[in-house]
């Protein structure tokens, strides 16, 4: 049964979320991995805020905790300790289903390896998060069409991912992240699997989206790309060691 939802649809060019407070806030967030005999501190008391409409880059060397931080931000993982507010609401202790609901409605993911589903067409890949909302077909169609238009991939909607280049696949992945009209886009090394030309193109796309009002948080270890962000947070050994404001 399809259900009409009252999703907030922000017009392009505006940042979603309640004005006047940070969209995302972490306080003393820690993450410890326990293996048989070793206790690994991936994050050791991270404080961080991201404002609406902001474009933040998280960088640092391998193993510094970038991806762990991103997975906590995206509610794919939970912190061992600390607090996390998303759009002013505490999300640290939510159950699996509620976290899935927030991932679906408030967060858009862009992965390094695109992670499109090979069996589904471009259209269906972009439609996927919307189907999990129980959104009506007509509304889904409209949203998918818009998202694909925004990344200039509407003409490829019937193709399978395997029929696209890496750059095209990542644009489809961006469209999928956008289609749900999330509060924030989380990008995990979005250019890592692309050559420099395609990498630049994706970064341009993210910049355009930011300029249209999207909030973006990107993990990258490539200094060339972190420059696209307004603010760069430097992680080392699970701590924020530096913050730089860009353009």
């Amino acid at each position: 049964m399809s259900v009409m939802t009252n999703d907030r649809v922000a017009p392009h060019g505006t940042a979603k979320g309640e004005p006047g407070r940070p969209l995302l806030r972490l306080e003393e967030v820690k993450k410890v991995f326990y293996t048989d005999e070793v206790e690994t501190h991936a994050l050791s008391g991270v404080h961080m805020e991201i404002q609406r409409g902001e474009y933040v880059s998280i960088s640092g060397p391998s193993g510094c905790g970038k991806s762990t931080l991103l997975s906590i931000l995206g509610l794919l993982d939970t912190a061992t300790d600390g607090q996390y507010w998303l759009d002013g609401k505490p999300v640290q202790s939510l159950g699996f289903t509620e976290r899935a609901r927030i991932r679906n409605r408030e967060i858009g993911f862009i992965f390094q390896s695109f992670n499109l589903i090979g069996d589904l067409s471009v259209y269906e890949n972009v439609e996927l998060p919307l189907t999990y909302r129980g959104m009506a077909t007509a509304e889904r169609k409209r949203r998918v069409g818009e998202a694909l238009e925004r990344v200039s991939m509407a003409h490829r909607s019937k193709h399978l991912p395997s029929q696209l280049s890496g750059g095209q696949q990542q644009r489809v992945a961006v469209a999928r992240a956008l289609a749900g009209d999330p509060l924030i886009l989380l990008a995990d090394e979005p250019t890592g699997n692309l050559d420099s030309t395609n990498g630049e193109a994706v970064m341009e796309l993210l910049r355009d989206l930011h300029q249209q009002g999207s909030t973006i948080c990107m993990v990258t270890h490539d200094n060339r790309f972190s420059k696209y962000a307004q603010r760069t947070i430097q992680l080392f050994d699970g701590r924020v060691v530096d913050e730089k404001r860009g353009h």
Partner: protein
Amino acid sequence: MDALLQDLRYAIRSLRRTPGFAFTVVLMMALGIGVNSMIYSVLRGILFADLPFPEVDRIVKVAVFDTKESDRDMSMSLPDLRDIRDQSRTLGSLGVWTESSAYLTTGEEPQRHDATLANAGLASALGVQPALGRWFTREECVTGANLVPVVIGHRVWREQWGSDRNVLGKTVRMNGRVRTIVGVMPEGFRFPETSDIFVPLAMNDTTSSRGNHSFEAVGRVARGATLAAVQSELKQIAADLSREHPATNKDGTFRAKPYREDLVQDIRPMLVLLALAVAFVLLIACANVANLLLARANSRVRELSVRLAMGATRGRILRQLLTESVLLSLTGGVLGVLLGEWGMRLVLASIPVEIPYWMHFELDASVVAAVVAVSVLSGILFGLAPAWQVTSGDVLTPLREGTPGGGDTPARRRMRNALVVSEVALAVVLLIGSGLMVRSFLRMQDQRSALRSEGVLTSTVTLPVAIYPEDEQRVAFFREFRQALAGLPGVRSVGGVLNLHLGRNNWSMSLQREGVDDPKGLDNPVVTTNVITPGYLATVGLPLLQGRDFTEDDGGKGAHVVLVNQSAARKLWRGAEAIGKRVRFGGEREEWATVVGVIADIRQHVNAPEQRIPEILIPHTQFKNQTLTLAVRTGGDPAALASSVRALLRARDPNLPLYNMRTLREQIARSMWDTRLYAQLMGVFSVLALFIAALGIYGVMAYSVAQRTREIGIRMALGAARADVQRLVIGQATRLTLLGIGIGLAAAYGLTRFMAGQLFSIRPDDPPTFAGVTFLLAASAVLAAWLPTARAVRVDPVVALRHE
């Protein structure tokens, strides 16, 4: 509904993109479900048959067993049954019967039917009354009664009298005697198995001996009485009779058991064996499906993680996988049910004898539902387990670079390996079980080589006592008919026999050895006995090892003679010269018969145990029974003789039917039909099991090679030769297989002991079978691992190192 349709659409598309996987899973399920629906439906049709008798649980089979010899029930004597009928208070009625044949002459040629001689109490013991007319009265069941009534079965009524409701009172010529139809039994009733002609059994026949155990009996437990009370009363009656008639009843006691149990006791062990075999096939198939689903789910970890990252709930993911599993299972289930139905029809069609009336074989809905449920459940369980793992654990890792399609964890690897080991172990047990059955059947078939069965036509003639009342008439008829047959063109020899060798009958008698046994001895030896005419040995090719065959002058007015087989000679005279020794049957008034020859050992009943092999043969002139099977040897095609033999008999006596006309080869093959069928079924099941297990090994090895492509590439980059890679892959398959074989051999050693009773001339721990199966499984495993190995050695290190 929209979401469900979407799940269904994705499922169909996903399965279409992996046709090999979908086809294999559906095939496994169809095979597992098919053979199980087939066998369990047959099993239900027999073991849980709806017998057409009211309050069937109150019907008990009454039998005698020898407390000293064995625990096996034997037929009863008429005097003993009369005493039980007259003395028992716990049995409301007692039905007594013996099986016979009836030759009905309603048209030109007499038709043979299975018939039952029954007493007046049988109908009430069974609780069944004729649909038309009546059953026999007690007065009709006496020797010399004026009226000779007959009750006919529904089928005979329909086929011979066109369901004429005025059939009662009509007369029919049966076995040369005119009888009056007094009743028609209800539709579906035949008793005890296939008979549909019922004639009165003379219960007052005082000439019948207590030593003549030829009658069967059922009783209906009286209201208020229990089975225990019946047992106790029967025991008391037996004890009294044992005191009164020690010569015949010394070690005998009576007992009752539920009739339903008695009906199925012989076939139950084999059915249970078959049921176990197909359960093994289902288990192997389920393990294989589980393995395939596990491997597939592992390869979809990334896809599932993407869905989770996109906000799919655990329930939604599980539902998606459930849709796929159920789709596969239902497709397999539908195909399995069709396969089961087809298989059952095929099996039933291959049975050459008439199936007892109470067995009804239909694909049973509850059986099918149970089997499908087991398969679907296993599919769902193994399909969903990995999804549960994925949704409970780390979602991000599979989404990152370098984790192709998700990750294979040691726990999942162990699970897959354990499933393969289980498949191999189950296949070993099943293969050994079926190997024993097949070898058992081959041993049985080997007996054929002892006879010269080609070129021989056999057929049976029975001379009704009403037409041929005198012994001499019967002897003369068979002698003259044999001579006439011998005159047919192409005929080389002719002989008659009571029970054709390697058949389904076994007749035993006790005898007295001259100078050894007491004339009234209670422990005189019992040996298998047969009646033959001169020419029988030569016709069927039964080798005469010593002495001479019977001649036309033996018996009758000449000297009485017998032949013995080697085992009988050994058993009766402990290796001393048998020829010249004398024996006699049936008391001091009988003549001594001299052993004039020794023949080779050939079983009378094709499946007789060792102790029944000793046989003594009596010439027809000394034992002038009314039925003989005539064997005719010809130089050409024996079947071509059929019409001449029939014409010859009609010319001599048109009232006599000729039945069971088959070549000797066909006759012997028919005798072995059940053993052959069981061996064939077990063979088919074990081939299926072997195929599925090999497929399982192949699947795991192929998956393992795919997962280890990068590792293999690294090994090759570091200098591993092709042989090293081959050893790596084959070694893994061999370890799993050997472990499975080891477990399987141990289990088989323990389990096959229980099938000893179903084996012929072979031990349940038969070393060649165990060794053969070990070799077969090991070879299959190496073969199954060969393709993935070949793929592994073709790995290009450069490509492999880039492999995701």
